[in-house]
């Protein structure tokens, strides 16, 4: 009985690989775009423009305060009502990118705010331009604060990508649902699905630790 289930599972491995691939591609694209967008938003959020900062803050609160499943339904099922037709993959990318950008925006803004005002004043006094101050002085210091929660957020977002299975994208989670219809052993199937996610996420967790150590050393801290 168990043996048959294993054989049947083994037969599903091309599907499983496809699902894993979809999860990875979806995550990679939306995390890359979300990081770029999130840094941009975070910088604007802490910039001088109050209106812009307020609008970004409101949007971030809205996205953080509503379930991702609802957001993805809105993008996939409601936007077409207004004439914007999106395929499931594009809709998934947009929804995940937006979610990532909002969380990353707040992480980046917190990091920027943690840099002492004296640092900005020193950079100002040296005649550095706005971009140079950000790039040379503020962001490198903010990164030390940003990096650990950022990579932690990546892990959460990769796991959140499982929600795209709800609009029919064949990611790892949906593969689980498909396989469990043929192999009626939910515990085994979803255990393996979990392992799949863990395989993707664990290197990131390791990476976060390494980066943290490296940033610490680059900061000239005396190692005890």
């Amino acid at each position, binding site marked *: 009985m168990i043996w048959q289930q294993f054989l049947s599972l083994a037969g599903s491995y091309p599907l499983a690989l496809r699902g894993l691939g979809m999860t990875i591609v979806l995550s990679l694209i939306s995390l890359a775009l979300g990081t770029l967008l999130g840094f941009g938003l975070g910088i604007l959020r802490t910039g001088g423009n109050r209106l812009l900062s307020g609008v970004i803050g409101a949007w971030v609160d809205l996205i953080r305060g509503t379930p991702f499943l609802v957001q993805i339904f809105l993008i996939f099922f409601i936007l077409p009502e207004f004439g914007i037709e999106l395929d499931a993959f594009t809709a998934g990318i947009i929804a995940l990118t937006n979610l990532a950008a909002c969380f990353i925006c707040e992480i980046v803004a917190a990091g920027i705010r943690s840099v002492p005002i004296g640092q900005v004043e020193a950079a100002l*006094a*040296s005649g550095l331009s706005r971009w140079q101050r950000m790039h040379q002085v503020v962001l490198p210091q903010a990164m030390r604060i940003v990096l650990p929660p950022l990579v932690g957020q990546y892990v959460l977002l990769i796991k959140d990508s499982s929600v795209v299975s709800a609009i029919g994208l064949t990611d790892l989670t949906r593969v689980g649902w498909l396989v469990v219809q043929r192999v009626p052993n939910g515990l085994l199937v979803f255990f393996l699905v979990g392992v799949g996610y863990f395989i993707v996420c664990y290197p990131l967790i390791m990476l976060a630790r390494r980066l943290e150590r490296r940033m610490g050393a680059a900061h000239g801290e*005396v190692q005890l």
Partner: protein
Amino acid sequence: MTSNPKGPNDYDQSGMTQPGLTKTGMIDFRGVNKWFGALNVLRDITLSVEPREVVVVCGPSGSGKSTLIRCINGLETIKDGHLIVDGQRVGDPATNMTQLRTEIGFVFQSFNLYPHKTALENVTLAPIHVRKIPRAEAEQAGRVLLAKVGLADKVNAYPAQLSGGQQQRVAIARCLGMRPKIMLFDEPTSALDPEMISEVLDVMVAVAEEGMTMMVVTHEMGFARKVAQRVVFMDAGAIVESGTPDEFFSHPKTDRSRAFLSKILRH
């Protein structure tokens, strides 16, 4: 000078500029006012600093002396009056403040070195990125400057590995790297342990003796006597008294300056 309260429009007759010269000072405050909310932190400041002049600003805590010099490079904005620095009007939309700041070195009480950069990188950052000096050239100049402030062996040290006095000397070298026309010092030795104060003051004396235009907020009277041409005493946002160091320390004219001096000279 400003102890007689003249309006900003009387400036040209106020005797600050030499008669017959239309040239303005390197730093020119004309009837400058500033408020923090309801608090009048700068009251009708009129003060002119000539090129190569060293002016020491002193006064009790909260008297507005830090605010005064922070206005010069636009770290604080003024409410009314005119402030002309190196011929350019601070706060005027037509003035490129970023450009003007490259001509003004500013030394902070708390050093504000970039903690993620070495001493040399702190010194070369602005020359490379703002002055567009080639890296190799900037690094060579940076090494010379660090040697000049006595830190030739700390070129590759991070700020966290340096003492307060060493950090402040790097901060001075960082300003000098831009070859500024003006150097402003905001209580540069107040955050230092006593045994480190003189190493920083020695560097400042050397900078002054090279003919730098300087405004220094400090209570280091030894420094003032040695290099300052003028001491300006502030209280409650106004310039109460100004004169040569000898005049000011030996014959303070006002009760407030006498009271202040008796407090700082008691020890």
